[in-house]
């Protein structure tokens, strides 16, 4: 998440910048963010509502749009529970045991982050495409994966599955396993330990990981675009329909759907902020309880060490 400290740099002569430098830097930074991020975001809503409410609503209740929204929700509803189980299992394995090949697991876990979404989609086309051995065999059994919903789910799983584990691993690493050990010593079964000790400890990080997963799952474009094959009304998710509408010069429909996705992004950011604030407050509380009150606030507020000046 975000690191912040409450050190007042501008009242220390050694870290103070001249006021005009400070003003210029703030203006450049804010202007850059406004031009690059805020204006494109606002433009989405502006373009969506430009032709009036009626057209906006009409383009959202259009059968094609409804189908796309439905498919996006179905995909998220399948991907989220799977990711939750996978994320917990991987985080549990990596943080609770020492075993050979642990490095391999964490490396493979990071791989989807460094692979282009298009390459990810292509890999599933190669694996399950109709002219591949596996795809042909599954087709014979009556299962179609590529250019159908299962392909979309698989591609989305590939691009999203590190999110939950990546949120859980640092937390579970710092928490350690002493509480679980204690529960076992007191006679709890493995599942009891998990439900009553582990899960309450990780619930917020888990929720946060799932929110990130959801945002990416609903918004994924590249990978899904490759595996879906763009069959109208059948395998279009919301981002894919955005592309089709845009290329058909149906801008109101494209931006109306985009506005829903942009709203989802804003909600995701809002939840992220609230959770960061909550965590900071909790951290500050525990800090106050643990550390001696006379310790000064320094630039390294998180780790009071001997190099802190009085």
């Amino acid at each position, binding site marked *: 998440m*975000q*690191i*912040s400290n409450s050190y007042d*740099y501008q009242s*220390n002569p*050694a870290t103070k*910048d001249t006021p005009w430098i400070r003003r210029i*830097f703030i203006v*450049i*930074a804010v202007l*850059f*963010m406004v031009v*690059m*991020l805020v*204006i*494109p975001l606002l433009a*989405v809503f502006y*373009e969506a509502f430009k032709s009036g409410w009626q057209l906006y609503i009409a383009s959202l209740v259009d059968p094609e749009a409804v189908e796309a929204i439905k498919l996006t929700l179905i995909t998220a509803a399948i991907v989220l529970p799977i990711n939750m189980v*996978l994320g917990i*299992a991987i985080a*549990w*394995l990596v943080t609770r045991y*020492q*075993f050979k090949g642990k490095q391999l*697991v964490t490396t*493979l876990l990071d*791989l*989807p982050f*460094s*692979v*282009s*979404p*298009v*390459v*990810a989609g*292509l*890999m599933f086309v*190669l*694996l399950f495409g109709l002219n591949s051995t596996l795809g042909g065999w599954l087709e014979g059994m009556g299962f179609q994966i590529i250019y159908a919903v299962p392909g979309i789910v*698989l591609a989305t799983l*590939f691009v999203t*599955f590190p999110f939950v584990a990546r949120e859980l691993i640092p937390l579970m690493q710092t928490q350690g*396993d002493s509480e*679980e*050990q204690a529960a076992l010593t007191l006679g709890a079964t*493995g599942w009891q*330990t998990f439900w009553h000790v582990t899960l309450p400890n990780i619930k917020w990080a888990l929720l946060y990981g799932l929110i990130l997963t959801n945002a990416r799952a609903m918004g994924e*474009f*590249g990978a899904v675009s490759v595996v879906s094959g763009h069959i109208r009304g059948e395998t279009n998710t919301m*981002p894919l329909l*955005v*592309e089709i509408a845009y290329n058909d010069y149906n801008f109101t429909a494209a*931006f109306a759907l*985009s506005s829903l*996705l942009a709203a989802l*992004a804003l909600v995701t*950011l809002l939840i992220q902020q609230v959770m960061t604030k909550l965590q900071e407050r909790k951290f500050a509380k525990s800090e106050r309880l643990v550390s001696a009150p006379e310790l000064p606030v*320094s630039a*390294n507020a998180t780790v009071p060490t001997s*190099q802190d000046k009085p």
Partner: protein
Amino acid sequence: MSATSSSASKPLKKGWLTRLRQRNVLPGFGLSMGITVFSLSLLVVLPFAMMAYTTTQMGWTGFWETITQPQVTAAIKLSLWMSFLAMLTNMVFGTLVAWVLVRYEFWGKSLINALVDLPFALPTAVTGISLATLYAPNGLIGQWFAKFDIQVAFTPIGIWLALVVVSFPFIVRAVQPVLAELSVEFEEASAVLGANRFTTFRKVILPELLPALLMGAGMMFARATGEYGSVIFIAGNIPMQSEILPLIIISKLEQFDVQGASAVALFMLLISFVILLTINIVQWKLSRRVGAR
């Protein structure tokens, strides 16, 4: 005699799975290992192996012929060049934004801080159509550029712009925590020794930020070379001029040239592998220098 030998061999009778791990009484090793191995194999290992297999089927010459097709080399050059320019841009502005967020207090700071992550949360297709509409010759921003005869959308400038936007958070989020953790004593010492703020930044702060900055830049570059959704709407996609590498894969797939597509994909994987390797080597060198100091 026989009793001792049987008790000595007892640990060896445990399953192979249990021998993988080192002593921990917590249950669930088998279950979590099973889920992990199954999911990683199905989602990561198998698809990768399949792609490598498809490419090896066409042989080295086939691979090389695909990569050296004029349309493909043009796309490789364009993708790498635009990603590099976007990386330089974000190294400057990302560091600046991180600096402003850590060092200064101003109205709206927490909002700006929250908005840094927007490109990660906003679907790339949404970013793409929004930028394309804004910067089109008749768009809200594009019409101003049109007055100076500059066309942003549907040219490589548009590609650069989209890449800057979608990969913006990487460098800010890499530099920000390091800057916040940086001890003020370094700067105090530098000031006491008579250095001005610029010298202090160049000689004291920047070397401390460099590993994080390069890490963020490398991740950003890797992401930018593979970016698809935000770029295709604004790029124009004219072959040899404004066609990016991921789009080559898509167009090869549309012509049912599966092997050609997988050759290009493998080449892209090689690029990101080289980038990640370079970052690691540079970081290792830098940390050694810092350690030796």
